[in-house]
């Protein structure tokens, strides 16, 4: 089947449709911000509530930024929730030796499982959906077995659940990953593999190594999320990180991320999508909408946003 890139843009003439499509994730963010600010009678942008929104999107944002690299490869990671749980579990257990072990152990666990995912997918050629789904079962099982319920850590560790620290970390990670994704050879290699793995290989790109690194990045970020979940609740339980993979997937879709990978993947999808999703969740909660209706609204919003924001202009058209 021949694939031809159809360029719909007309140089020199303002294309409103293309503009709105291209900027829809931003426009969508502004729309949900304005709509919920009005519907909640100004409570949404209240000083304290802004921190609630931040705390909601902090974890999802970190997780989303982690999966951007592997999604640009055209891969999926269904084990991010399980890795968060396992990282928190090992982190909590390491606190028995000393609280200074919590951070390295949690992040190290995430990194290790991410690496394992990458090796299974690239070396054993297991499709990422299946490999990471299997890893999520392994991770969940191990978490339940290790914790035998739940394990607490000293309350003094809550000092790390510090908003200033989290904001600084979020900005640093966003900046570093943005540069890594958009301006380094590694980011470009990821997208070139997503566009055509074979072409990338023939151009000298080390496909396996790039994939392993992408899953390791995702695992590392999950470890970070696991650590912050642990210091926020001072508890690791079998439920820690449950359904996190869906939150992350929804967030990147809200941001207009292409699931097929390649050059159409934009880093902003992770950040803008996470913020939009946190605002939608928080706004509906502030409005007192019950959980059942929230699920319906989320589903409808997702269909609308993905249908409108999907970047078709730069996507491949199969003829």
């Amino acid at each position, binding site marked *: 089947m021949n694939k031809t890139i159809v360029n719909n843009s007309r140089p020199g003439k303002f294309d409103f449709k293309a503009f709105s499509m291209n900027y829809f994730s*931003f426009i969508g963010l502004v729309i949900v911000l304005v709509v919920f600010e009005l519907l909640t009678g100004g*409570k949404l942008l209240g*000083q304290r509530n802004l921190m609630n929104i931040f705390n909601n999107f902090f974890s999802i944002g970190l997780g989303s930024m982690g999966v951007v690299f592997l999604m640009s490869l055209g891969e999926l990671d269904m084990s991010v929730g399980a890795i968060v749980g396992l990282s928190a579990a090992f982190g909590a257990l390491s606190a028995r030796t000393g609280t200074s072990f919590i951070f390295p152990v949690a992040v190290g666990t995430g990194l290790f499982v991410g690496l394992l995912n990458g090796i299974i997918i690239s070396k054993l050629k297991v499709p990422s959906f299946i490999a990471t789904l299997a890893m999520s079962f392994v991770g969940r099982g191990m978490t339940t077995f290790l914790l035998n319920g*739940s394990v*607490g850590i000293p309350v003094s560790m809550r000092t790390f659940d510090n908003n200033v620290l989290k904001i600084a970390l979020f900005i640093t990670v966003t900046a570093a990953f943005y540069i890594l994704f958009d301006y380094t050879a590694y980011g470009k290699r990821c997208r070139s593999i997503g566009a055509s793995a074979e072409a990338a290989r023939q151009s000298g790109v080390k496909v396996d190594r790039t994939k392993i690194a992408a899953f390791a990045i995702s695992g590392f970020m999950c470890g970070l999320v696991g650590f912050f*979940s642990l210091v926020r609740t001072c508890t690791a339980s079998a439920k820690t990180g449950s359904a996190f993979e869906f939150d992350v997937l929804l967030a990147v879709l809200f941001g207009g991320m292409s699931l097929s990978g390649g050059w159409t993947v934009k880093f902003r999808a992770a*950040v803008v999508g996470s913020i939009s999703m946190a605002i939608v969740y928080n706004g509906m909660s502030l409005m007192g909408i019950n959980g*059942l209706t929230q699920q319906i609204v989320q589903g409808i919003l997702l269909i609308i946003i993905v249908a409108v924001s999907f970047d078709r202009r730069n996507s491949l058209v199969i003829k």
Partner: protein
Amino acid sequence: MKKVLSIMLAAVMIVGFVTGCSAKSSETTAKDSAAEAATTVAAAAAEASEKSGDPEPFTIGFPWATASTDPTFVSIVNNVRAAVESAGGELVLVESDLTADTLINNISELISRGVDGIIFMPASDSMLPTVDQMCSEAGVYYSTMFRSINDADIKDTIYASKYFAGACFEDDEICSYNITKNLVDQGVKNLCVINIAKGDTSSDLRDKGIEKAVKETGINLLNTSYGITVQTDMTKTIESYIAAYPEMDGILLAGTYCDAALPTIEKALSDHNMAGKIKVGRIDFDFTMGEYLANGSFNVAYGGQQQIDPMLSAVILVNSVIGTPIVTDGPFILITNYLELTSSEEADNFLKFFLGDDPVFTADEIKASMIKYYDSSLNEDSFKKIVADFSVADVAARHANL
């Protein structure tokens, strides 16, 4: 242009967050003063105008699984709402999956919405210091329902907190001990158990009670499965039990968050021609028990606390929020009794009076007998009597004409 737009949006959010952070301390101080002032004003008002007028309007936050249509979950909301409205308050519900992470986010959100009190079901002991810290900083009272605190250090910390109004929970260990002995009395010698996820305070205590009864009676505890939340897993577990333990003659559903758990168990047993041959008991009443008690495929249930526990926890909180706490020297802790249900008539009454639209005590009944603002003679003993008198028959008699 995209970069400029991204930077602008990011800058707006960051400025917002930073101002959010810096505003916290002054907001907290203001809230503290407001809480103290409100307490003083309410106390003075209560003293000055006992039984006349109502307390100042207040709001109580309640993180709960509002998406659940399970009648028990719905009835819990009805009972909490009745307690809050009995003193003229407003209930603010937020959707929660009841995990520690989400509950903490829910509580943070409720505090920012300016609620005066928060009632919730803790996911674990270790999350409580975090909640206490958040509520104490914001000057918001809180109470817990269903769960006791097992960790001695955490218990000391929480019980010493000015903002912990109290709790209402049942004695899970005694309950599971009693129901196990009841099954043994009915002839069970080889028992399989299904319980809530390990680490859950109630689950651990129920395990202890079962172990104690098993040890005392000398029966065999063949297996225990944990954390089943969906019907397909429930079916698989029962089928595995049937296949692996031909000697099994009893199943105890010690706890689950699975909807329609009992019909699922009965269906799995019926499919293998085992319904009625294996004794089945469960802790926590549900809406299908009557039918199975009538046809003999279900044998005993201990429960009924799912309605009164949250209602009394909310009453304890409301009394503190309006400035008339039941006890003044610490949190008010109430332990409720499990009700035993062995006939289809009792099950029918439970269905009608516990899981219907009305709470087990209406807002008017609560106002008349449980709110100290309206009746200053209320004390610890008044509540112990309410707990002791509470039964399916008691609710049926009081609400026969509603």
